């Protein structure tokens, strides 16, 4: 009983600091006026045509990103999970790379690729066709949808690929034996079984697009339109309209909560009975003459997410003028010397980012390990609630969380603004659900009977923990650590409201440089960020013995 009190005390405290205080302040400020409670902030926010437009733009963006992500992610998942398309490992690796690429870096790279006039692809197009009009204009809504989608479709991919890998082929074969044609099988058997995965992947993609700040800021603002996130951010310009920002945050919060609820329904209603078993055979579908065209199509899609953007970043890092060919005159190491030796913010930002990433990952991994252990082994009264609370922050988009944290921690009793701690709180809250999901699946996979066996043989709980559970859970917890780490180094949407000049992190520095148009330095820092990310991904793969996306090797 006393153990329960300790656990619940700790959890309650964490909940108050991480969620209740920021969101409570957010709610309060959104209805506070000079003369007590009022709805004036909501009226002002939602009556403003500019803000209405931002709201509409966000809906358009999120919806299309969901659709395009499904259109890319689902076929890719089917190809790699069910067919004999060549180089499946490579394709999975590339999807993983797209999954961990910071979206704002991708958006920035696409400015250099498909800016309507100087963009590398458009220059090439013009020289090939002597056309006048650009091939692509990235500073448009379709451009934004495209760039966001190529880094969001992995959510759909993961859901669908993992489901396909679990569905046995026997139902499909039974249908085929009963005389159904290939299309009929796909329509009546396969599609209904992956439908929950598709729908939930679609919802995840929509959620990502709703909460994104960097890509709209880089692509939509130059084109003269806002989304909710960029609009909330600009409400903080002097003189700040914090109350309106708070009021404007709520639709985002509600939309997220609602969509997650729908996703849960969709996943819960059906599918798992057929999907759960591991018994059946999964037959590989031969593509025949379509093998190589299919591979080419996959590579073409992945080149838009990986090869082209990474290539143009690398080029810009070594170029004096990014829009010119990389000739001997245009080649320089100056961007590197400037970034590392002359630009004073670089070192601090890298140090801050690493400090925060390591700290958040360590404390976060310890917390999720403890919480998921407690929940899985039912060690306290109300253990079901533990998981719910740990996953709850998933409904809070980064910008909204940041607005809440900013309001809560710029005033007594806790003034954390100006320190790394406010960023730490933001990151810990934001990454908690991802880490918890990973740790939870780890403990679920460790059967309690091993521990019971130890018990029977007379070992105490601590000894069992040390000698049985910990060694088995180790790799899963390391993976949770790495997920949190990667999440922290790419975080922009909360950081952009919470940093001070003392507490800049890499993503914020890159955004600062973007506003000034310092392409060379951004490219250098972007490469550093990618190297860090992939270094950590390598560690996860080694720890798990499988790739991060979820299938065994």
């Amino acid at each position, binding site marked *: 009983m006393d153990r329960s009190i300790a656990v619940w005390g700790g959890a309650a405290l964490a909940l108050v600091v991480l969620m209740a205080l920021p969101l409570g302040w957010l709610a309060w400020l959104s209805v506070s006026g000079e003369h007590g409670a009022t709805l004036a902030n909501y009226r002002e926010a939602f009556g403003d045509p*500019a803000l209405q437009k931002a709201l509409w733009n966000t809906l358009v963006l999120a919806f299309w990103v969901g659709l395009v992500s499904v259109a890319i992610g689902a076929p890719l998942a089917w190809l790699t999970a069910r067919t004999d398309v060549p180089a499946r490992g490579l394709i999975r690796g590339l999807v993983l790379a797209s999954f961990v690429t910071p979206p704002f870096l991708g958006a920035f790279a696409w400015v250099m690729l498909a*800016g*309507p*006039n*100087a*963009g590398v692809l458009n220059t090439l197009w013009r020289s090939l066709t002597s056309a006048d009009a650009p091939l692509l204009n990235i*500073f448009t809504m379709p451009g934004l949808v495209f760039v966001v989608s190529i880094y969001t479709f992995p959510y759909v991919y993961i859901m669908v690929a993992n489901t396909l890998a679990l569905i046995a082929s026997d139902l499909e074969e039974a249908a085929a034996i009963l005389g159904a044609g290939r299309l009929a099988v796909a329509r009546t058997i396969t599609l209904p079984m992956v439908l929950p995965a598709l729908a939930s992947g679609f919802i995840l993609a929509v959620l990502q697009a709703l909460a994104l700040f960097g890509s709209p800021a880089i692509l*939509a*603002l*130059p*084109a*003269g*339109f*806002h989304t909710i996130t*960029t609009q909330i951010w*600009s409400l*903080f*310009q*002097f*003189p*700040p309209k914090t109350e309106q920002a708070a009021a404007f945050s709520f639709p985002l919060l509600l939309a997220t909560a609602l969509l997650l609820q729908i996703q849960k329904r969709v996943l819960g209603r059906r599918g798992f009975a057929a999907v759960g078993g591991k018994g059946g055979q999964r037959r590989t579908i031969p593509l025949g003459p379509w093998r190589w065209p299919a591979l080419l199509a996959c590579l073409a899609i992945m080149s838009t997410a990986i090869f082209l953007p990474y290539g143009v970043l690398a080029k810009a890092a070594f170029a*004096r*003028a*990014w*829009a010119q060919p990389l000739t001997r005159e245009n080649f320089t190491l100056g961007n590197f010397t*400037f970034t590392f030796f*002359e*630009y*004073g*913010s670089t070192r601090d930002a890298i140090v801050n980012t690493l400090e925060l990433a390591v700290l958040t990952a360590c404390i976060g991994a310890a917390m999720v390990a403890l919480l998921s252990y407690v929940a899985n082994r039912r060690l306290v009264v109300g253990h079901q609630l533990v998981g719910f609370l740990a996953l709850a922050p998933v409904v809070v988009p980064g910008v909204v969380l940041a607005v809440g944290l900013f309001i809560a*921690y*710029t*005033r007594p009793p806790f*003034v954390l*603004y*100006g320190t790394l701690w406010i960023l730490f709180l933001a990151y810990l809250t934001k990454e908690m659900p991802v880490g918890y999901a990973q740790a939870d699946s780890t403990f679920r996979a460790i059967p309690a009977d091993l521990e019971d066996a130890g018990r029977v043989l007379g070992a105490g709980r601590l000894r069992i923990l040390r000698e049985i559970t910990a060694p088995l859970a180790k790799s899963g917890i390391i993976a949770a650590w790495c997920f949190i780490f990667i999440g922290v180094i790419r975080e922009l949407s909360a950081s952009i409201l919470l940093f*001070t*000049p*003392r507490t800049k992190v890499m993503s914020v520095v890159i955004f*600062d*440089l973007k*506003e*000034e*148009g*310092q*392409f060379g330095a951004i490219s250098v820092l972007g490469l550093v960020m990618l190297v860090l990310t992939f270094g950590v991904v390598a560690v996860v793969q080694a720890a798990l013995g499988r790739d991060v996306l979820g299938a065994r090797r």
Partner: protein
Amino acid sequence: MSRRTTGLAVAIVIVLVAALAGGGAAQTAPTASPHLEAAKKEGKVVWYTSLVLPSAEKVAKLFETTYPDIKVEVHRTGSQRILQRVMQELSANIKNVDVIHTSDAGHYVLLKEKKLLAKYTPAGVEKFPAGFKDKDGYYYGLRATVNAIFYNTKAVTAADAPKRWKDLLDPKWKGKMVTAHPGYSGVIATHVLALVHLHGWDYFKALAQNKLMIVQSANDPTTVVSSGERVVAVDGGEYSAYQLKKKGNPIEIVYPKEGVPLVVSPTAITAFAPHPNAARLFTDFIFTRELQQVMADSEGLYTGHPEVTYPADKPKLNDLKLLTVTPEELEKRNDEIKKHFVEFFGA
């Protein structure tokens, strides 16, 4: 005891080296300043600046070369972001910044009114022209630039290039122009107000019909034009275009005959400066003739210093018709400027 002796010896050596070297920015004898000893104890000065990043880092480096014991912490962002930073920090009772330098003179009216500035008159500014001096002695113009029209010489011939502000309203430039943002840049806020005086808000309403690309910093329209992403910039700091041109980028500057908006960027020490002596030393340093000359030579800026000479390929400030706005009006109409701009241009 011995540490102090060493410190003294180092100081003497520095003075000697500086005197012997007899050139460059290090010429100002460090011992000349009454703030030096106290500044050394403070060890650093925190500078929020809107000067373009490479130039700001250069100024910091020159200061650190002259005063090796005192570091300059440079935080560069747009003028409006700096004001936002300062006010946000103060709302959480954070006192971080020593010296504030933005291109929106209106900020200083506001900051002075809120009693956030310290009175300080750097040595030598009494000879500066009136437009560079606050009558109450709180802030002084560190540098100046003008807004002009810029075009890409590979895409536009000199004959075709726009000559006057209203030429930019020609539909032939539709989708081909770029502007920076008054909600980010003080240079642009000043520019917008000056042109509102000249042509009224209708000018911007009409300009927006040409579907401009919108960037943030006043240094960015020029980089966008030199990259060829857009062929004409409708505003921007002329000094960044000058630097780009010097480096061989295909960019040319047009100074419209109706006048060019002059932007004088003030600097001031905060009333709450955590390193007040270092702040004074730094402020004295950036107003020395040597440093002001560096800004004119390599950065392409104008200054208020009467003895500074300018590169031969730059027009004299006196030869240009200058459009000026007062800091007071800029302060008063800041919200109106941002609001109308967003209304016309969309973001």
